[in-house]
């Protein structure tokens, strides 16, 4: 029955995920800070310039003294019912001095909040790139499973400035792939070289096809975006850092929710911790 499987594989390969454009509405933005009013106003002014794509949205604020612990913050966020929370890494924490976490507030907020969280570089750390927080002309969606992820693409498109560049990126984990091939190399009935070539080709083909579908739809829309594909295999953190520098990315967009665990998505957390120099939109 190997031929049944052969044809089923051919038909499955021909069955492709099709992108549907459905840009999310962002009517209410909640800015959460631990700043005093003057500093907060300065930040708001900067953000209004930075997030021109949210023009028309109502901005609400939570500042210093309005919450004392995580529970109070979550309650406040719940009460405001925002479409987007904007804050910065290590909110209410001095752990920004050590690059090992997002801070206790953000660790919980990104998972407990029902809406996306835009995480900015820490205001006093000083590690932000020069182009960070100026505009969203270059936005990059990052994932290790892009195919069919309409939500990620829609949010990314929503935050890309008109005539801007939207990178849809998919980086396969090289370490995992090598481990798989190493195992296949110990199975006599599977041709290792053939498996390496065909599996890798298929892994990269699916996101490439999906990005093609995204490009087709977005090019036909009135968003006026330049959609580009980045599909590769590599050691992801290293590759993403390189891509961010190469393309002067203004904002990264990634999924953080994982239906199988309470912790942040396996790829998102290390990226969010390590990439401190540009804003991150965590879905």
């Amino acid at each position, binding site marked *: *029955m*190997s*031929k*049944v*499987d052969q*044809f*089923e594989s*051919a*038909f*499955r*390969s*021909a*069955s*492709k*995920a*099709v992108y549907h454009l459905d840009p999310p509405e962002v009517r209410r933005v909640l800015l959460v800070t631990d700043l005093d009013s003057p500093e907060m106003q300065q930040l708001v002014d900067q953000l209004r310039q930075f997030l021109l794509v949210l023009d028309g949205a109502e901005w609400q604020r939570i500042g210093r003294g309005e919450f004392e612990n995580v529970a109070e913050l979550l309650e406040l966020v719940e009460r405001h019912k925002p479409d987007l929370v904007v804050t910065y890494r290590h909110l209410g924490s001095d752990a920004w001095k050590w690059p090992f976490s997002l801070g206790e507030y953000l660790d919980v907020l990104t998972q407990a909040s029902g809406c996306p969280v835009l995480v900015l570089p820490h205001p006093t750390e000083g590690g932000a790139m020069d182009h960070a927080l100026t505009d969203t002309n270059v936005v990059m969606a990052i994932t290790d499973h892009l195919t069919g992820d309409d939500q990620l693409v829609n949010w990314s498109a929503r935050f890309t400035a008109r005539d801007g560049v939207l990178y849809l990126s998919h980086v396969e984990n090289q370490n995992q792939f090598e481990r798989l091939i190493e195992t296949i190399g110990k199975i006599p009935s599977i041709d290792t070289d053939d498996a390496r070539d065909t599996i890798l080709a298929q892994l990269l083909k699916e996101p490439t*096809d999906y990005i093609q579908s995204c490009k087709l739809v977005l090019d036909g829309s009135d968003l006026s975006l330049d959609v580009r594909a980045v599909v590769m295999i590599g050691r992801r953190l290293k590759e993403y850092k390189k891509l961010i520098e190469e393309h002067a990315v203004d904002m990264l967009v990634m999924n953080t929710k994982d239906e199988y665990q309470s912790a942040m998505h396996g790829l998102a957390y290390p990226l969010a911790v390590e990439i401190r120099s540009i804003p991150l939109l965590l879905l």
Partner: protein
Amino acid sequence: MTLQMTSMSLISATSALQDAAHQSPEVPLGVTLFFTGILVAMILCLALEEKLHAKKSVIVGAFAMVSLLCGAACHLLPFGPVEVGGHQIDLPVYIPAVDWNVIAIILGSSLFVDVTAKSGLFTWVAIKLTKASRGDPFKLLVSYGLMTVVFSAVLNNVTAMIIVGSLTAVSLEKLGRREKLLGFLLIEGLLTNVGGLLTLISSVPNIIVGTKAGISFIDFFLVAGPYVAVATVITLLMGAKLMGIQGLRTAEERAEARELVAGFDENDGVESPVFFWFGACMLVAFIGVIASASVLPWISDLKMGYVALSFGLIMLLRFKAVADKFYQAIDWDLLAFFACLFVVINVMEHAQVLHMIGQGLEGIIGLGDVLGAGSILVTSAAASSVTDNIPLAAMLAQILGENAMIAGDPDSRFWWSVIFGANLGGNLTPIGSASTLVAVTIIHKHGLPMPFVRFVRLALPYALVQLVLATAYVLIFVG
């Protein structure tokens, strides 16, 4: 198209052997009965192939070895050199027993179909039809049903079932209608045997009986075509009714289904447009040359095996550096099965077993053109439902060819009774034909229960209607 057309030579081989058998010395009745026992045992083992967990080639191979040994012990086999082109060649007795033209047809056509499939042609056609149905279950059933019939007629029913069955599983999964999978696969399995009736080369029994009877390709198509058309429509309508496969009712459902099937990309499997069109042209040429092989100069001498091998080789040129991968994909079980079957039939000829069965059938044939032909059709169907229809068709064709009233009359109803009975009998049970077995295997692969009894219960209404229709058709319109 091919695998099955194969046995055309089985006929010629067995007929030659039959002639030889008639000239052989008298065989004691006890010896003939002993070999009849071996033949019956082989048929039973083939029927119980699944239970025995043994491939056809191993089963028939074992019986071929036993038959040869017993044949040698009983001094039935014509040992000695064989004359080929005026030269005496010393060959083992079982080598000339095999019809190598049949083996060449199976080998060549398998290669041709496998390499042509790499062009993406078959998946392209299948996906185009899926998209044309716009995801509507009823239209999908009709599309897949027609595709099954056409693929069965021009490829072979096993390949047709594999292509259409696997597409059905994938597309119904995509449409979220997995609960309809069993119904679709069952109907497609039943239609493979209807499609196998369409042309002289659509199935092995057609080739065996049609060639022996002297029915031309065109005449075969003209006689069988109307039945196939009517039986296909009736089977599809019955399937839609009994399996609850209906069209979509609301505009929303239709829009959603249309969008889902639009996600299929028919060009995904087309690696090279040039090779795709080359494959399409070669397929048309292959069908054309095979259909006219008997009248083409030189080709008629080289026979269909040459045509199949040549087309297979031409397609292989594209993959000349990795041709060995296609050799691995060849159905060696089928090839060995045919080779061993030829050997068993050869020994049975020498043991006068076929002659004895022919005498037994004289009574049925003697019932007349109506009752006799009808009885042959029903008997053939019943026998085909529990065992392989190829040996059955070979034996019956041989026996009818010995009958003075039937031999030489291609319009005789008896020939068509065997053809219709041997093909449609496969629809009565899951083991009745290779393609229904494939359908059941795909059903099992997707975790759906389909034990023997359930298949019979579900398939019986269709098979009975097809057989009643076939009997009426043969008795009213044929002859």
